[in-house]
């Protein structure tokens, strides 16, 4: 199998282009590759469209840093603090520049990604009937169910495919075959529909480990473009069995990003003055160590023997 191991700066440089649509984290509040958020900012990527149901403060950071032209999502803010200050400034005052907002709910975004992944021409749903999401996002169409005699409104969700999906997993082999456990959000749909996938692995393991449990694989490894090993690449978001959430870090970001100046100072301290993720981890120091899960609560094994 192809060796796709890369380092994160190279993978971001080679695989993410200005104007791309990018899924950066697909598990809602957890498994968000903040390491890639920081690297996109460092490399000065521009005019990205961020796709995510919820990616906590990551999206707010990218907006404030001027990387984002469009938002396709259900929620942008700071899960610890509530509102996203950079999101507000961009939406309300076009600071640092205007952004196009494509409103979705969580379920309709998942449905759109599913349609994109599996070539479904569009996905009929009912869950946002009556919502003004239908007014603010004209990409949805409303129709009636042709299978029912009674008038039954239906919303049609068009397919959505990202140019790049950057997806954290607990472990991957060098070819992009990986294991993800715990809740997976929209990971599978986002990956399969994406033109290019960057796997951000907390750990690189031998191919035999992944092959020992094919039911744990979240998406086809052969579709992966690059694999980057970044321990704690999700910090400050949590990862099942690996890292707890750094709530204080996100609260601090929330407070400091309230004003542009504070956000810029935060950005300098945690992104621009930190050359790479190893330096970021070193800067976190004992704080990161305290977030690392040291316990061991193993899954009961299953047998794949064939004779």
């Amino acid at each position, binding site marked *: 199998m192809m060796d796709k191991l890369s380092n994160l700066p190279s993978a971001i440089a080679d695989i993410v282009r200005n104007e791309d649509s990018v899924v950066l984290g697909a598990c809602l509040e957890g498994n968000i590759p903040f390491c890639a958020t920081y690297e996109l900012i460092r490399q000065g990527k521009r005019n990205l469209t961020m796709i995510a*149901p919820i990616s906590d403060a990551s999206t707010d950071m990218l907006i404030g840093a001027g990387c984002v032209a469009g938002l396709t999502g*259900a929620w942008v803010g700071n899960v610890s603090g509530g509102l996203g200050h950079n*999101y507000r400034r961009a939406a309300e005052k076009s600071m640092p520049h205007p952004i196009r907002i494509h409103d979705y709910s969580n379920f309709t975004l998942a449905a759109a990604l599913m349609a994109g992944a599996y070539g479904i021409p569009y996905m009929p749903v009912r*869950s946002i009937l009556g919502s003004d999401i239908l007014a603010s996002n004209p990409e949805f169409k409303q129709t009636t169910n042709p299978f029912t005699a009674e008038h*039954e409104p239906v919303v049609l969700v068009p397919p959505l495919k990202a140019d790049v999906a950057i997806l954290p997993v607990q472990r991957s082999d060098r070819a992009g075959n990986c294991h993800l456990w715990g*809740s997976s959000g*929209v990971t*599978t749909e986002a990956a399969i529909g994406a033109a290019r996938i960057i796997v951000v692995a907390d750990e690189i393991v031998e191919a035999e480990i992944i092959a020992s449990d094919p039911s744990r694989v979240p998406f086809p490894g052969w579709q992966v473009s690059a694999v980057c090993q970044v321990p704690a690449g999700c910090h400050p978001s*949590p990862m099942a069995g690996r890292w707890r959430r750094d709530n204080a870090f996100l609260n601090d970001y929330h407070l400091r990003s309230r004003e542009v100046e504070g956000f810029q100072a935060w950005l300098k301290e945690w992104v621009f003055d930190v050359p790479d993720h190893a330096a970021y981890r070193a800067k976190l120091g004992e704080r990161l160590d305290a977030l690392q899960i040291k316990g061991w609560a193993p899954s009961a094994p299953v047998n794949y023997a064939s004779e």
Partner: protein
Amino acid sequence: MSGEGYSTQELMIIAAAREIHDGEVVFVGMRLPIMAFGVARLTHAPNAVGLFECGLARYEPAADMLYTMTDPPNQKGAAWATSLFQVMGLLQGGHVDAGFIGGAEIDRFGNINTSYIGGHTRMKVKLPGSGGAADIAGMAKRLLVIMNHDPHRFVQRVSYVTSPGYLDGGDSRHQAGLDGGGPTAVITDLAILRPHGRDHELHLASIHGGHTVNEVLARTGWDLKIIPGAAQTPLPTAAELAALHRIDRDGFWRNKI
């Protein structure tokens, strides 16, 4: 503190817990509802199931404090760890009895805005957006709302309907294609409101101890009517308080909304 040995937050959580019936499948989300789920499980609803839109279902509440639904203690020992589509698909499939949401603005028909204060064409404040709230409001068999009773939040008509309640009242929710559902309780720091009559307008159903009808009316942005027989919200029982203290040992969630 209300001076009765429990805080307002605690009363709200316990009132929310009482809205969960035994054996029900409930979208609990984060903050107060997840506490309410825990209290319900430990008291009158030992067979309730909690759902989380990240792709989790739980029987037992998580053993440790959660900041978010994806936190490791919520993953450990879950009843089901899967995708967002499957868990929220249960909702659209009619398999979910109730769901909790909060909001920045609510109106007399229980419509909720968490997207745009001022509406999307004349936005004054950009709020975070729906998340899963629109889906939960549309598809859960009952919607339970928890909000602080601020006058500028309880408005005649929300400027943007993120999460539909009874829309324009009457059968307008049904006309929009939403069969059943809609808010059945709005739990605030002052009172509980419930829809009443054919119009489904939110009425005052009970007042928490220490508050008055006039106070509630003054802090509601529409001409709030009172359900005949409205009384005081029943006090938390010792068992309910004990359950709550067992779940939120450090008081983290009881002290914020």
